[in-house]
């Protein structure tokens, strides 16, 4: 009886919630098609792709200066890639270590988790102070990079821990006791089981680093990464080219997500095919 009223009410509420989540991005996407003489608000004077051309440097330069996305985009992607490799390797190693019980595992666990808890502005400040004191230069590929790993490594670690928790160790032991070399065992037994986790850890690391901003602000030095370039435009007046950028960068992230989905699907279907052969 009550559930008959409650269920539709909650369903309606959830719909409103999704509108609340998506509303601003939808408005932003609409306004990115503003015409050349329109501002970053309603009304839309005329539909055009002028601001996309402006963003990509295809339009003649106008009163609005171009967003500095070119080089900063490359820096952000390289940085995200470096972060992904290191934090995934560290995450897999640490999670593997946690499969054995050892003294001090509690504090070690919390030390790693702290990396995702500590606010970026704090570690960023600390790193800037440290590099000042040690007289080291600040650069996105150095001081920013190590902080990005501090942030993404705990995520990779947690994902891998969840995978290893469900991982029956005896399968590995069986392979080893049947005389298969440890390297072969890793390649043929361990890796296929942990691969979905590795892929998820990589996705997390890449997107978190690509978008990371607070940890980069004080540590990047002179060359800007993409989020810093965007942040720089906040203090001055904003124009619809920022909205066009928002749409494009969102599409980029979704492409990554789709690639991840496809890889995952391909892998899981392959795994189930093996299973089918075993049954036969």
């Amino acid at each position, binding site marked *: 009886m009550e559930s008959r009223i409650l269920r539709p009410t909650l369903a309606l509420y*959830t719909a409103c919630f999704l509108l609340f989540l998506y509303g601003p991005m939808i*408005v932003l996407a609409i306004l990115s098609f503003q015409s050349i003489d329109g501002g970053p608000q309603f009304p839309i004077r005329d539909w055009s792709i002028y601001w996309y051309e402006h963003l990509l440097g295809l339009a003649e330069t106008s009163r609005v200066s171009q967003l500095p996305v070119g080089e900063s985009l490359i820096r952000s992607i390289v940085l995200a890639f470096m972060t992904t490799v290191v934090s995934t390797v560290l995450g897999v190693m640490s999670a593997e270590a946690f499969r054995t019980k050892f003294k001090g595992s509690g504090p070690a666990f919390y030390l790693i988790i*702290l990396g995702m808890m500590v606010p970026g502005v*704090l*570690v960023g400040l600390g790193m800037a*102070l440290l590099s000042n004191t040690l007289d080291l230069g600040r650069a996105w590929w150095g001081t920013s990079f190590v902080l990005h790993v501090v942030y993404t490594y705990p995520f990779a670690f947690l994902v891998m821990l969840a995978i290893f928790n469900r991982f029956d160790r005896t399968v590995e032991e069986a392979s080893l006791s049947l005389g298969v070399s440890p390297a072969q065992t890793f390649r043929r037994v361990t890796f296929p089981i942990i691969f979905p986790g590795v892929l998820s850890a990589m996705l997390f690391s890449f997107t978190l680093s690509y978008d990371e901003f607070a940890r980069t602000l004080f540590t990047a030095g002179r060359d800007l990464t993409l989020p810093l370039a965007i942040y720089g435009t906040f203090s001055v007046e904003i124009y619809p080219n920022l909205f066009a950028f928002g749409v494009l960068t969102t599409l980029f992230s979704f492409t990554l997500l789709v690639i991840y989905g496809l890889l995952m699907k391909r892998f899981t279907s392959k795994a189930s095919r093996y299973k089918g052969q075993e049954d036969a």
Partner: protein
Amino acid sequence: MSALSTDTHFATPHSPAELREKKDRRRAISLLTPGLLWMFFFMVLPMAMVIYVSFWTQTTFSVNSTLTTASWKHFLSSATYLSAIWTTLRIWLIVLISTVVVGYPVALFIGLFVRNKTLQTALLVACVIPFWTSFLIRVIAWRPMLGTEGAINVILMKLGIISEPLTFLLFSEFSVLVGMTQIYCVFMVGPITFMLGRIDISVIEAARDLGASFGTIFRRIILPLSLPGVIVGAIFVSVMVLGEFATAASLSGRKVNLLGNIIVSQVGSLKWAFAAVAGVVLTIIITAVIALALRLVDLRKEM
């Protein structure tokens, strides 16, 4: 001498099992060492540095390592800084409450009322997708939404509900609260949905068969079992909101100054020692909040 030999005697493993255990432990530690070293050098050390520099001497454009408490005295006697602490705490508390209030019913619907696994996953993914767009873009997206010529004002004027645009919507504390609630709500919905999804439906059915109303079922079964999720979500939201500065910087029109904003502006004017003091104060607040939350739930057990 003799004590030493007995010691080594005890330490020598006897059985193969003991030998293997020792080998495993050594392997675990060597696997863990690189990660822990990384965390020590690039997280613990910088944080220690923040504490250390907060006691340095600040001159107009530089700091030197003569120890003093002058920066602390300056900070604690300044109305601007003290009000930043108060603003940070107030915004944190309001956002925390609003994310629970806004997020809980959604989690309740997805975790408990949607039985279809595919639909459940689809709804969760729909909640997580905005997280995949750039954080700064999500913040800036509230400007065309809330501005005087923004979507909300345009719609309300078209509908004839208001005749003048509402000006309190943007560049106010309100816009900061709305923006933060939207951005951080997902971190509340996720953990609560997870906990609610683990509830055995037969328990609720049994209660209903025994004549309990939904109110009673919610109060006696659903709420207590979902509480760890609320607390995990609260930890996520708290940590992120307390360390915030970008949302306040871009949506408040400089009306809201959080501790994070103080740090950024002090670094901008090379007042490293003052920034460090603000950093230590922020660390103390966050540590207190997490410690409180961890007393209520064991994070490692819930994962």
